[in-house]
């Protein structure tokens, strides 16, 4: 049981972005990926979720042993993969509550519906944890939300959908310190031995609140260094330039 990324190569037309990426996330683990701009961090999250702009040229992604690269975007989601978007989309006219209900219903056998009472009970409990006002249930998904509200809403979805593996793509960007704390609290509440996290971030700051077990450095489409939490502190202090590709060094 794990999310296993093996020698993953992916490209947009004319440019390879992921160049043989290897990473294994076991349930219960929180992995952080850090790296300079353009290293492929966001590409990784989109490729894992099946975004059509990216073409996987080789490699495998196994979700609990099943290769998900041939699966549609929605099937990957239902298989247990969740992405908290860096730029969550607005869905005009669709209320947050209806959106979540539709997403939960999509996980049920055809013809079955969710229990509305249970649903709202859970939704309100989760919203309380994220200090979200009840009015958010009837507001259109992300429409007119502030940057911080959008990120909170992403974590609310994570909490409601309870995925096996969650990717947080720069969830800290655009958050003030109070919002960062609230969002982190939500994520930490979801940490469990049955769930793996991949936290993509530019900054060490987020990792003060969501403590990673393992930190990776992504550079030019490959993981070039892996370490413990202390690695993120070092990166914060020294930047990325000093990091060299250990695998290349080893090969040399």
């Amino acid at each position, binding site marked *: 049981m794990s999310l296993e990324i093996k020698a993953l190569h992916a490209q947009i037309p004319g440019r390879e972005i992921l160049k043989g990426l290897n990473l294994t996330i076991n349930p219960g683990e929180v992995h952080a990926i850090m790296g300079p701009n353009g290293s492929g961090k966001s590409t990784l999250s989109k490729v894992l*979720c099946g*975004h*059509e702009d990216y073409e996987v040229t080789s490699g495998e992604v196994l979700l609990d042993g099943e290769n998900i690269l041939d699966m*549609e*975007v*929605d099937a*990957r*989601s*239902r298989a247990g993969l*969740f*992405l908290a*978007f860096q730029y*969550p*989309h*607005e*869905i*005009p*006219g*669709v209320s947050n509550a*209806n*959106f979540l209900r*539709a*997403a939960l219903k*999509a*996980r049920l056998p055809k013809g079955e519906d969710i229990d509305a009472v249970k649903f709202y009970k859970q939704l309100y409990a989760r919203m309380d944890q994220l200090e979200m006002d009840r009015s958010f249930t009837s507001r*259109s998904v992300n429409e007119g939300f502030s940057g911080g509200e959008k990120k909170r809403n992403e974590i609310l*979805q994570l909490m409601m*959908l309870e995925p096996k593996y969650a990717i947080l793509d720069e969830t800290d960007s655009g958050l003030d310190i109070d919002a960062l704390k609230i969002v982190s609290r939500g994520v930490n509440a979801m940490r469990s031995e049955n769930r793996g996290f991949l936290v993509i971030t530019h900054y060490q700051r987020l990792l003060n609140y969501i403590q990673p077990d393992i930190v990776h450095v992504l550079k030019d489409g490959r993981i070039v260094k892996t370490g413990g939490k202390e690695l993120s502190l070092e990166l914060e202090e020294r930047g990325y330039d000093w990091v060299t590709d250990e695998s290349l060094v080893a090969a040399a």
Partner: protein
Amino acid sequence: MVTAPEPVDSDISDIKVDNTGNFTFPERNKFDSGFGITDKTVDYIADVKGDPDWIREFRHKALKVFNEKPMPTHWATKDLENIKFDEFRYYLSDGQKPKRSWDDVPEDVKKTFDRLGIPEQERKFLAGVEAQYDSEAAYSNIKAAVEEQGVIFVNSTEGLHKYPEIFKKWFGKVIPTGDNKFSALNSAVFSGGSFIYVPPGVKVSHPLQAYFRINSEQFGQFERTLIIADEGSEVMYMEGCTAPKFETATLHSAVVELVAMKGAKIQYVTVQNWSSNVFNLVTKRGIAHEDAEVRWIDCNIGSRLTMKYPGVIMKGRRARGEVISIALANSGQHQDTGAKMVHAADDTTSNVISKSISIGQGRSTYRGLVHIPKHLKGCKNNTECDALLINANSHTDTYPAISVRGNQHSTQHEASVSQVSADQIFYLMQRGLTEAEAMSLSVNGFINDLVKEFPMEYSVELKRLIDLEMEGSVG
């Protein structure tokens, strides 16, 4: 004299269903005017219906106008030229009860009803199991309830026979025969439709539904509806339903006239889902006298070509007119819809909100006309038209014509075209929705604020209908 042709019996197994749930079945008709339209056709219809002389004359005059008027292809689509008037039958009346039973209705038809959540009673009608039978009971109840208040709610034929003094006063006055080629056609061959009169001060508590007195005539090709709300009265009328209607005829041309007297309020709700071979060319207009209000709430789905621009003539001071419309055009369909707002008194207010959705190669056109003449003051108009394109090859056009003379008025116009973006669909699918579900949700969101204007049961059906339309639209 008329000799009725022998009814032709048909078997339920002849019902044809296509993959979108549209279905047709061979009809048996006691009265059949034959193909094409001539003075003889008009006389035939007048004979069968036992028209009074003035209506017979009205029909003949209308036929002349129809023949003389050119097709409006100088502004409308050339597709109109494909209508072969000689290939239609202009009057059919089902004189007998169908013999088919519910058990005989094909499974896939039943399934479509299930998925749309159509009530049992309507299913039977729509499947051709019943024409006017059980639904009579429900209709009678409504009728009894409103009759106590003095409301007249009958079909147009009964209206003109039984209440000539009211009928004659307003019939053809809101929409004159020569308004357009198709109103003339309707005037020549009309049958079916409703006649409603609401006495002064009466607020009709039930929405009056055409559902409730469904019969073959009601769903005629050339229905004619006349609603008069007398001073200070209120009425809501609902027609149609979201189920795909079986169609043997492919030309529909209705005329609907509304008269709201001083302080009266009329709301007219339409939800129609035509099969994709239908030309649906409808003229709808209301007159709002002083302090009166006419609201058209309109949803058009399907058809090969729909041309429909509900209008309000605000004739008295402080009159209000409103058109709220949703149009959905799938591949092979053209929804050419809009609104006409004619301000003819001071301090009149009109509001037009139109949303259209084009799927696949579907095409939607908004055509609006707002007229505020120079001699008036204090008139207001608000026009909003938003178009949503689902695919890159979907098509939308907007032709707003707002003519405002004088400087004591206020108008605003907003138009937008948006496309369901790939990133929005990706976002929704990442949460586990299939592509079709993601599309449906986006489309339902787009029209959500307008759907709220429809009565509850319609809005639920609308949502399901959009789900069904979207299923077929994505690869």
